[in-house]
């Protein structure tokens, strides 16, 4: 996030897009609700009538994957109505003139055709955000998990640059990070293009710095993304070490993924449970879990916080860092003689520009938000206050692109996926916590009542959902939360592996999978055998 969580009670106008915050980041959502109670206005752009939409002033139920068109039209209205922050544009941005020209032709009427929202609502939303003194944008993977994920994010930046809504209290362009330490994994250098602290691997000076630190020269060439690596399993990639990820269930196109992992000569999995992915591994190392591990995590507002062990691990489970460093020693490599999490974290700080002012003891109370460039620096709750990292904020001239797969006669319905409040990810944890199943014990496909009637489905009955990648059976639930023509399911339950269907394309820059827009066909079927239906395996579920 560009701004701290504490800023979330402060905007006049909140613009949430592609974020189901009341379910995915519930405590952050309480801050937005407090801002609303104070009189703030809220725009929510989401295909579904999610919890936030219920309390919004304007809900834009856009068609999945059409965000760029909507955002271009909002920029058009803001420019046309003279709501641009000219001072900010002149002092802090580049290519503003070109951008104003660029958006001239993208009228709300033009966008309405593509994103299937009401042109007047688009206008209304633009006037609200453009008129705000403090306008703040919040987004989640509903923005990034598309073939145009980067374009989506840049479209949001364009809006903020246009209206000067960056670098001040209660403003910003704020991605809400999904996992407890997904920010930290990137900070720590688990990226194919960056060393720790986002230092690019293609830079000779960085190569030199890490050569010195690690005693080995690292390629100047950017590594593969995970997506490419999975594509090349058995054909260039022959060994994988996977830490704490149930790749088989969370990743798109499950059949492809399963095949990929099985074609490796060596798969090493480090995890706390025997997950579906661990079951196909050659070696499984038992890791210590949360509350058994000392360490550090960084939240969505870049706050660096301590994790502390409270109980001993089961049996011989060990911290991840211990496992990986001991394996490195067995490989015969030098420099992996770490004895504590503290030593590991302090080495990270010594090599990272964003953590340079931190160490294990200094983060004890979680006061710092990175960057903390040197000791004594107070941290940076708000980014871009004085200047942008690269000098000026650059407008990007973007065009709308269709998703890689669009609706057809055979696959006339959009499937979109996400999370639900009580369950987390593939339930390796929440599924094993007592009581959580009381709130949510099975997956259902959310379908608009009109679609149910049109397709001959039944509320509470079963449907077969398919596309060329796979097929599965799922229980149907009628709800107007889903718009007509779009259905929703989460990937929390192993018996409804929606990711056998997803995977229609990737963002060309980040290679993030398009998990949010996937054409499918739906037809009624009988209940599964366990519930008195005809025998036969769940289609699409390969046996592991």
């Amino acid at each position: 996030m560009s701004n701290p969580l504490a800023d979330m009670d402060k905007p006049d106008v909140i613009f949430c897009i592609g974020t189901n915050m009341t379910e995915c980041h519930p405590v952050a959502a309480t801050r937005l609700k407090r801002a609303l109670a104070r009189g703030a206005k809220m725009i929510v752009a989401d295909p579904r009538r999610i919890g936030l939409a219920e309390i919004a002033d304007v809900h834009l139920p856009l068609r999945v994957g059409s965000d760029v068109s909507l955002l271009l039209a909002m920029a058009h209205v803001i420019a046309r109505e003279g709501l641009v922050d000219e001072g900010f544009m002149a002092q802090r941005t580049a290519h503003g003139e070109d951008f104003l020209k660029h958006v001239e032709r993208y009228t709300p009427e033009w966008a309405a055709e593509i994103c299937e929202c009401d042109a007047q609502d688009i206008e209304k939303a633009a006037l609200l955000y453009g008129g705000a003194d403090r306008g703040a944008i919040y987004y989640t993977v509903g923005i990034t998990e598309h073939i145009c994920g980067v374009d989506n994010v840049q479209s949001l930046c364009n809006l903020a640059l246009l209206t000067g809504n960056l670098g001040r209290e209660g403003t910003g362009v704020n991605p809400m990070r999904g996992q407890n330490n997904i920010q930290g994994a990137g900070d720590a250098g688990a990226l194919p293009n960056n060393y720790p602290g986002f230092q690019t691997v293609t830079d000779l000076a960085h190569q030199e710095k890490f050569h010195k630190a690690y005693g080995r020269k690292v390629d100047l060439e950017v590594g593969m993304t995970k997506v490419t690596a999975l594509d090349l399993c058995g054909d260039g990639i022959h060994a994988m070490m996977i830490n704490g990820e149930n790749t088989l269930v969370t990743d798109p196109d499950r059949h492809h993924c399963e095949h990929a992992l099985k074609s490796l000569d060596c798969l090493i999995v480090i995890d706390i449970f025997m997950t579906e992915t661990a079951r196909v591994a050659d070696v499984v190392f038992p890791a210590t879990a949360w509350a058994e591990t000392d360490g550090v995590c960084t939240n969505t507002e870049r706050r660096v916080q301590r994790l502390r062990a409270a109980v001993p691990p089961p049996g011989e489970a060990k911290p991840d860092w211990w496992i990986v460093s001991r394996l490195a020693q067995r490989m015969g490599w030098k420099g992996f003689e770490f004895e504590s999490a503290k030593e590991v974290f302090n080495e990270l700080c010594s090599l990272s520009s964003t953590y340079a002012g931190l160490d294990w003891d200094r983060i004890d109370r979680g006061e710092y938000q990175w960057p903390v460039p040197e000791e004594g620096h107070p941290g940076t709750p708000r980014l871009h206050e004085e200047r942008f990292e690269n000098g000026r904020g650059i407008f990007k001239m973007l065009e709308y692109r269709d998703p890689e797969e669009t609706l057809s006669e055979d696959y006339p319905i959009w499937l979109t996926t996400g999370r639900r409040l009580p369950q987390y990810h593939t339930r390796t944890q929440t599924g094993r916590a007592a009581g959580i199943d009381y709130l949510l014990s099975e997956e259902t496909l959310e379908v608009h009542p009109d679609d149910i009637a049109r397709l001959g489905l039944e509320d509470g009955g079963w449907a077969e959902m398919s596309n060329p990648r796979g097929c599965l059976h799922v229980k149907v639930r009628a709800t107007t939360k889903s718009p007509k023509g779009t259905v929703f399911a989460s990937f929390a339950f192993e018996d409804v592996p929606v990711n056998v269907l997803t995977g229609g394309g990737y963002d060309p820059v980040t290679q993030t999978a398009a998990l949010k827009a996937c054409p499918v066909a739906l037809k009624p079927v009988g209940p599964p055998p366990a519930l008195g239906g005809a025998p036969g395996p769940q289609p699409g579920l390969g046996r592991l």
Partner: protein
Amino acid sequence: MMKRNGSPSANGKGVRLTMTLDGEKVAFNRGETIYEVAERHRKDIPTLCYDPRLEPFGGCRLCVVELEGARNPVASCTMEAQPGMRVRTRTAALETQRRILMEMVASENRDTDVDPMHGYASQEMAELLDRYDARTGRFEGAQSGASRDDDDNPFIKRDYDNCISCYRCVRVCAEQEGDYAISIMNRGFHTQITTEFGGLLKDSACTFCGQCIQTCPTGALGDLKALANKDVPGETKKTRTICPYCGVGCAVDVMTREEKIVGVLPAMDGPANEGSLCVKGQFAFDFVGHPERLSTPFIRDEKSGQLRPASWDEALDFAAGKLKKVVKDHGRRAVYGIASGRAPHEAAYMMQRFIRGGLGTNHIDNCSRA
């Protein structure tokens, strides 16, 4: 509970605002209540309906103080401090009044002592009863609510026989959470905390965040998951850490007895959450000690093709052997690492160090692309 107000500074016009507290001249910020000023000066005024995160309510009148010029004592939690005010926080008359109030409060409840596992604030009433030596049984009160034993939810105990109608639960749900799942039915002795249509929490707007449990000062509301562990032997120890689920990064205090997690408390001074939690952070902790946890390494048996338990020595050698063979057959670029967005920094850092420092490639990623 958590404090939000800082020390007073000169106001905008450079004038210091002052008042007199128990004979001592003290400074304050505009907008602060008498209670907040007194709290900063460690006056320890008793409260029952007060939660520093919520709008002052003024229901219990336990926090009354004497204000010079006012005929009756005033509730310090709702009254704003004004320049020149002269306030006494502890006099014989006030203490008597507070004692009577506590005696009456106690008379309304079935239990005056509840297990601390009920929740963060559950001991507040009992502590005040001790402080005022108020378990006299002098008054015969009517219990002001009826328990909801029919609510079968596994998280929130609803035992309104112990409710004192402080409305903290109602207010935390509305003001802090914005959910408005609980409300008030009737007034006076007949007050009953309820949900929409008087039904089960599951059928209301409740998200099971547990905030009502944590603010209840009597244990009328209780944390059922923690209470299930109330007989686990040992002292309760608290360890400050961060919730393992989403990226908000809420701070929690994990409660343990000996080697078992017995419950979770929200950290009122957590920088990201300031005392809030959601259902996952509050209640989904017991995967940790789950019997299906891996407790030993496994390797795939060459003969049977099955995974079988192995010692660390054997498993590390086995893994290193396999990796070395891949490097020998296909080169160092044939090895790929995927780090976790759920594990700590040290895990991700060591994964990339393994790939970079060991193999010299950048074939490392994390799970953020899916």
